[in-house]
C-alpha cells in the first residue's frame, strides 16, 4: 500500500481542565472522502485546527506526503496544500465576491484576472457564482461557495469542510456533493466533519468516530447503518422522543398578514405571514438561516412589537404588546442565541432565571424582586433539566453551550407556556441533551401547549412536528402535515436552491 496523503499518529492536545484530543490517529489517502464524526465537544474542531495550523498539538506527529508536517500557522498549512472551509464564514458583507477572495490571498492577482479565475473554477466544479456580486446579497449557500472557491484557487491536496451542510437547502446540498465528488475524482482528499449520518453515508468513503477526544472506531459508512454510527458516536442507544397521538384543540395563536420591516441593513423583513396554531400541536418551521427566523421570533416574543391586528392570541389582539405582557398571558419564547440574547453571560443563573421568570413565577411584587424565590426557581430548572453547574450562583458564561441551552429551555418550559416559540432548540447541543430537550418540548405539547419550533435541522423538525412550513426570504410557506412529506418537497418549500442549478460544464 502506498503512503497515505496525510497521517496523524497519537495526537494529543489538552486544555486546562479538559483533554480535547487524546492519542488520535488516522490517515487519509489522496482522493479519499473521509468523515470525522462525533458529538459536540468530541474534539473534532481541535483536531482539524491542528491540521490547519491553528493549534499546536502537545504530542504526537503528523506526516504529509511522507514528510514531517507541523504547520506553525494556517499560512504554512495552506502552503502545504491544506484548505479549510469553516462553519462560520469570514466574509465582508459590503464587498464583492472577488474582493473578498482577494483579501484572503497572500499575493492576489489583479481583480480582473482574479475574476476570470473565479469564473473558471466555478464553471469547472459546478459552483455557480458571479465574482462581481456583493456578498451581503448572497444566500448562505452562495457564501459557502465563496469560501470553497477561495480554497480551490490554491489547488489544495486536502480540503477540510466543517459542517458544510448546516446552512444549505437539500438542493444546495446536492450541488455541493457533486462538487466534492468531482474534486475527489481528481485526487483531492476531503476531510468532512458532520454529525448528519445519512449525509456521511451518501458521500464518504471512510469514517473516523471520535468520542470525548478519543478515536472510538473507524467504519465504512456505506456498509454501516446510521444507528450503528450513532451508537458509536454517543456510546449508548439514543431514545427517540415519543408522544401519544392526539387531536388538536382550539386555535390559540393566529397570525394575519404579519409583516415587519428588516431591523437592519442585513436583516430580513417579514412579509405577509399568516397561520393558525392549535393547542397541542407542534408547528415546525424550516428554512435556510437568515430567511427571517430571528425576525419571526422577535415579532412573536414581543421584542419587536408589530402593528395591531397582526397577532391574535386566544382571541386577543397582542400585536403591539411587549414581551412582559405576552409572557403574562402565556406566550413564551426562547431565541436562538443563548449567550447575550436568551441569557446575560456575566449574570448568575439566579439572575437569569429572574430575566424571564419574574412575572409568571411570582418573583416580583409591586416592582420589588424576590431573590430567594428566584434562586429556588433556578434550582428547580437545574434539577429538572439536569444542568451541569456548581449551582445557581454560577455565571451563565461558565456553562457549556449545551448546559446553558438546557437551562434556557427549561426556564421557559417550567413556566408552563400555553404557546411556546423556540428558535434552534438543540443547536450546538450534544445528542443526549438534544434528545432530552426534544422530549421536553413534546411533553409540553402533550399537555396542551401549542409549539412553534424554528430549526435548521430538518431531521429534528420531522421528528417532532405535526405540521411543517418553511421560511424563505421572509415569507412563510403554507403549512402542511409533516407526515409523509418528502425531502424534495421540503426543499421546494425552502425555496429550492435559490435559483441556482448546477452550472453546465
Amino acid at each position, binding site marked *: 500500500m502506498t503512503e497515505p496523503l496525510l497521517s496523524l499518529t497519537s495526537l494529543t492536545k489538552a486544555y486546562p481542565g479538559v483533554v480535547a484530543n487524546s492519542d488520535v490517529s488516522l490517515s487519509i489517502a489522496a482522493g479519499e472522502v473521509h468523515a470525522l464524526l462525533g458529538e459536540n465537544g468530541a474534539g473534532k474542531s481541535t483536531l482539524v485546527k491542528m491540521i490547519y495550523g491553528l*493549534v499546536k498539538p502537545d504530542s504526537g506527529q503528523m506526516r504529509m506526503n511522507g514528510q514531517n508536517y507541523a504547520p506553525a500557522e494556517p499560512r504554512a498549512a495552506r502552503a502545504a496544500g491544506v484548505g479549510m472551509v469553516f462553519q462560520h464564514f469570514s466574509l465582508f458583507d459590503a464587498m464583492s465576491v472577488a474582493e473578498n477572495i482577494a483579501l484572503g490571498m497572500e499575493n492576489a492577482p489583479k481583480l480582473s484576472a482574479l475574476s476570470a479565475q473565479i469564473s473558471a473554477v466555478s464553471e469547472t466544479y459546478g459552483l455557480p457564482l458571479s465574482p462581481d456580486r456583493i456578498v451581503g446579497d448572497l444566500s448562505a449557500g452562495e457564501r459557502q461557495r465563496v469560501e470553497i472557491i477561495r480554497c480551490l484557487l490554491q489547488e489544495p491536496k486536502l480540503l477540510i469542510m466543517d459542517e458544510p451542510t448546516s446552512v444549505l437547502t437539500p438542493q444546495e446540498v446536492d450541488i455541493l456533493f457533486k462538487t466534492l465528488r468531482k474534486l475527489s475524482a481528481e485526487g483531492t482528499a476531503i476531510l468532512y466533519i458532520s454529525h448528519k449520518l445519512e449525509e456521511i453515508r451518501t458521500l464518504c468513503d471512510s469514517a473516523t468516530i471520535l468520542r470525548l477526544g478519543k478515536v472510538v472506531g473507524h467504519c465504512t459508512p456505506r456498509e454501516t447503518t446510521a444507528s450503528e454510527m450513532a451508537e458509536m458516536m454517543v456510546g449508548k442507544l439514543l431514545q427517540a422522543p415519543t408522544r401519544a397521538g392526539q387531536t388538536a384543540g382550539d386555535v390559540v395563536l393566529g397570525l394575519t398578514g404579519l409583516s415587519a420591516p428588516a431591523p437592519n441593513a442585513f436583516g430580513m423583513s417579514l412579509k405577509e405571514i399568516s397561520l393558525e396554531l392549535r393547542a397541542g400541536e407542534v408547528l415546525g418551521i424550516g428554512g435556510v438561516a437568515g430567511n427571517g427566523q430571528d425576525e419571526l421570533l422577535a415579532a412573536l416574543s*414581543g421584542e419587536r412589537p408589530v402593528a395591531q391586528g397582526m397577532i391574535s392570541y386566544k382571541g386577543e389582539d397582542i400585536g403591539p404588546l411587549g414581551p412582559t405582557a405576552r409572557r403574562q398571558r402565556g406566550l413564551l419564547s426562547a431565541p436562538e442565541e443563548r449567550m447575550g*440574547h436568551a441569557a446575560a453571560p456575566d449574570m448568575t443563573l439566579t439572575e437569569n432565571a429572574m430575566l*424571564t421568570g419574574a412575572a409568571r413565577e411570582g418573583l416580583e411584587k409591586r416592582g420589588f424582586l424576590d*431573590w430567594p424565590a428566584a434562586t429556588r426557581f433556578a434550582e428547580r430548572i437545574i434539577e429538572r433539566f439536569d444542568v451541569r453547574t456548581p449551582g445557581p450562583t454560577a*455565571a451563565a458564561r461558565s456553562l457549556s453551550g449545551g448546559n446553558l441551552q438546557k437551562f434556557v429551555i427549561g426556564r421557559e418550559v417550567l413556566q408552563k407556556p400555553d404557546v411556546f416559540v423556540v428558535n434552534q432548540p438543540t443547536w450546538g447541543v450534544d445528542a443526549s441533551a438534544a434528545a432530552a430537550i426534544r422530549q421536553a418540548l413534546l411533553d409540553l405539547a402533550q399537555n396542551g401547549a401549542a409549539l412553534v419550533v424554528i430549526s435548521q435541522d430538518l431531521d429534528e423538525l420531522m421528528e417532532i412536528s405535526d405540521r411543517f412550513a418553511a421560511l424563505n426570504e421572509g415569507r412563510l410557506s403554507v403549512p402542511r402535515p409533516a407526515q409523509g412529506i418528502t425531502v424534495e418537497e421540503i426543499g421546494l418549500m425552502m425555496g429550492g436552491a435559490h435559483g441556482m442549478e448546477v452550472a453546465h460544464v
Partner: protein
Amino acid sequence: MIALVKRPEPSRVFSLAAPVLAVLATMVFGGLLFAILGKDPLLAIKTIFWEPVFGEFAFFYRPQLLIKGAPLVLIAIGLSLGFKAGIWNIGAEGQYIMGALFGAGVGLAFYPAESALIFPLMVLAGALGGWLWAMIPAILKVRFGTNEILVSLMLVYVAEQFLASMSLGLMRSPEGMGFPGSRNLQQYASAHNADLITGSGMHWGVVAAFIAVIFAYVLMARHRLGFAIRVTGDAPRAAAFSGVNPARLVLFCLGTSGLLAGLAGMFEVSGPAGQVTIDFNVGYGFTAIIVAFLGRLHPVGILLAGGLMALTYIGGDIAQSKLGLPAAAIQVFQGMLLFFLLAFDLFTNYRLRFGRAEVV
C-alpha cells in the same frame, strides 16, 4: 509572552481588591512623581491622606470633607445608574450648573420675603433644572439616535455661558456695586442651606447624598428597574428579550442623574458657595465620573470613593500651600487613581498567563 485569559467567572476577590490596590499603586507612583519634583514623597502622601483628618487643623478640614464629598457622591450616584446600563452622561457639570441657577433663581425671586416654603421650593426647582438639562440629550438620543456623550458634554459649555450671563445680567445683585454675582443666599435666611449643626459641615446636601446612596442601593439590589439597568449593561439584547424598554431606560437614567446633579448644584449655591458667580462650578460634575468608577458603580463604594476623592482634594490643597506642590501634580495624582483602578479592574474578568502564546 504574557497573555490575558478571560476568567470563566468574574473574580470576587479582585473586584474588591482592585480599589485598594489602585490606591496603593497611586501612593507609590504619586510618591515617585513628588520625589522627582524634589519633594519628600512620604511627607507629601502623609499631607494628602493624613493631615485633613488627623492633622493639627483637622477641626477645620473635617467639615470640608463633608462639604466637598456630598456633591461628588450625589452626582456620582446618579451617573452610576446610567453607567451600569451603558448610558453615558458626561455632562453632569452642566446639569449641576442648571440646578444651581434654577434653585437660586427661585430663591432670589422671593427675596426678601421670609417663608419656610422657600427652601423646599428651591430644592424642587434645582432638581427640575438638572432634570430638564439632562432630558435634552435623553430625548435627542431616543428620538434621533444622537450620541448622549457628545450632546451632554457640549451642553456643559452652553450651561457655563448661561451661568456667566446670569451672574452678569439677570441675577446680578443690585447692591453688588456692579460686580458680577448674585446676592449672597447665606445672608437670606429662608434660602440659606445652613449647617444642620453649626460648624459640622452637615448641610441638607449631605443628607440628600446619604439618602441617594440608600435609594440607589435598594433600587439596584431589590427593584426591577435596577435589575433592568444591570441586564442592559451586561447584554442589551437579553434585556430587550426580557422586556426592558431601552428608550424608557435612557430617559430614566439620564433624567435621574440630571436630577441629582441639579440637586447638588442647588445645595452648593445656597450653602457653601452662597451666590451665583461666573466661576461657581469647580468640576464636581467631571470628578464625579471618577468617583463613580472608583466606587465600582456600587452605591456604598461611591460613598467611600467620594470621601477618598474629597480627601485628596483637601489634602492636595494643603500640600500645595504647605509643601509648594504644583496644582498640576495634584491633578496628575488624582488622574493616576482612575488609571490604576481601570488597570486593576481588568483582572476581575481576566487573568495573566505567562509562557508561550498560542493561537486558538
